[in-house]
């Protein structure tokens, strides 16, 4: 089964000192490497905070960082797991969670 991990609220990353950041980087590398080593990794990237919010075809466009700053999706991963339980386990030690981030795990539709 395919899953998507949406990572929100990584704003604490901005408050880390370089040496703290280095520790996070190492954890993150290890986590991302494991995802790959286990053959789970499909795709992923970080999102910048530039964006617009459209609420209707002709309605207002909200420019720039979205209103609720801490809810911004900062990055995503897609990966495989046998079950939702396993997917949650994979995400549990995503380093973002230790730095004020939240992780939303969603199953991707397979048209099965």
């Amino acid at each position, binding site marked *: 089964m395919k899953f998507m991990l949406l990572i929100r609220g*990584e704003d604490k*990353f*901005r*408050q*880390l000192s*370089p*040496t703290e*950041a*280095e520790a*996070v*980087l*190492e954890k*993150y*590398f290890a*986590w*991302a490497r494991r995802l790959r080593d286990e053959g789970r990794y499909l795709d*992923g*990237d*970080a999102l*910048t905070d530039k964006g617009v919010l459209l609420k209707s075809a002709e309605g207002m466009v909200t420019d720039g960082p979205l209103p609720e700053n801490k809810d911004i999706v*900062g*990055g995503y*991963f897609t990966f495989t797991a046998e079950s939702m339980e396993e997917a949650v386990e994979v995400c549990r030690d995503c380093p973002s969670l230790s730095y004020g981030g939240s992780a939303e795990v969603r199953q991707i539709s397979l048209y099965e």
Partner: protein
Amino acid sequence: MNVDLAQLSRRTTAHLARKFGAKNFDDLEDSVQDAIAAALRTWPIHGVPDKPAAWLLKVAGNRLVDRWSSGARYVLMPDAALLLDEPESFTDDELKLLLLCCHPAISEEDQIAFTLKTVAGLGNRQIARAFLLEEATVAQRIVRAKARLRAEGAIVTLPHTSELAERMDAAHRVLYLIFSEGYSTTEGGMATNADMCLTAMSLLDSLMLNPFGESPTSHALAALFCFSFARLPARIAEDGSLLTLEDQDRTQYDSGWRERGLRHMSKCATGRVASVYHALAAISAEHTLAKSFSDTRWERIVEFYEHLLLKEPSPVHRVGYAIAVAMLKGHAQGLRELRSFAAPRLSSYFAAMAWMEEHLGLDASESKKLAASLTKNEAERKFLLSA
């Protein structure tokens, strides 16, 4: 994974402070923080970039420019090269790979793309952006290059180690082309794509660290690059427009690059071969070292151009020669020189002609119009039309 973020962030901050002043130090720090946060989120996925310092500097610089909302794009200036990670020597195999990319069966424009992709590790999109090409065009050039190699059976006949030194000409040529393309390409209205010039410089550095690649000609080429970098900060005005040699503020020339250029100059004078790059570097040295436009030793420049034209009588060099002649012997003489040949597709030919005509009190409007219509560089076009 060995990344010293403390050192990287310190260097980036120091560099930005030097570049932009320490007046708004908070902004500098915030930008560096942003860049580090971006690194945390992207490096684990995409890997640590080849040049982490340059990567951080570029991201931080862009954030800074965003913050000050000028809408401009931060261009990695060549003095940032001092921040770049120490070049590593090419192995013999890497040298062979480079020579493969500049195989004579491949056309020059394809060699450039193929080398940047295969040796410098750039993506099609980066190459396309650097040279203002469609991504598909770059992809096509690379496919074509590989097809040529297949047709030549070149993949299986990498040059033998004993041939390396003598086949280095092709490598020099392609590095020179990458550098010149970068120097004359406009990006976001800026007159020079310093990234590409730096890429050429760093490939040359790696090349020269290999005993087969270290030669008087390599040093001459390196001197040429360094002198060009030295003059770069003065070449572009605050608003991104171009300044001629005559109008440049020479106190802005970068002394670090100048010194580096001189060191290479002193090493290129050995051996019997005086290459095209020796002449070009000597000309560039004269311009870089002259205190002002009028103090320039034009008699030496004319002489170097005469050497150059014996080796490579290209229209571009002939235009340079004509300008030097104009400075040494008067604009009428220079104009005669220009009119002794035709270069109907060369913008600088008509720009030089307009310059001479103006000095002689002649009507320069036609030459100016032609020069502006032929340039592919937006900054240059504005420059030509405003003068």
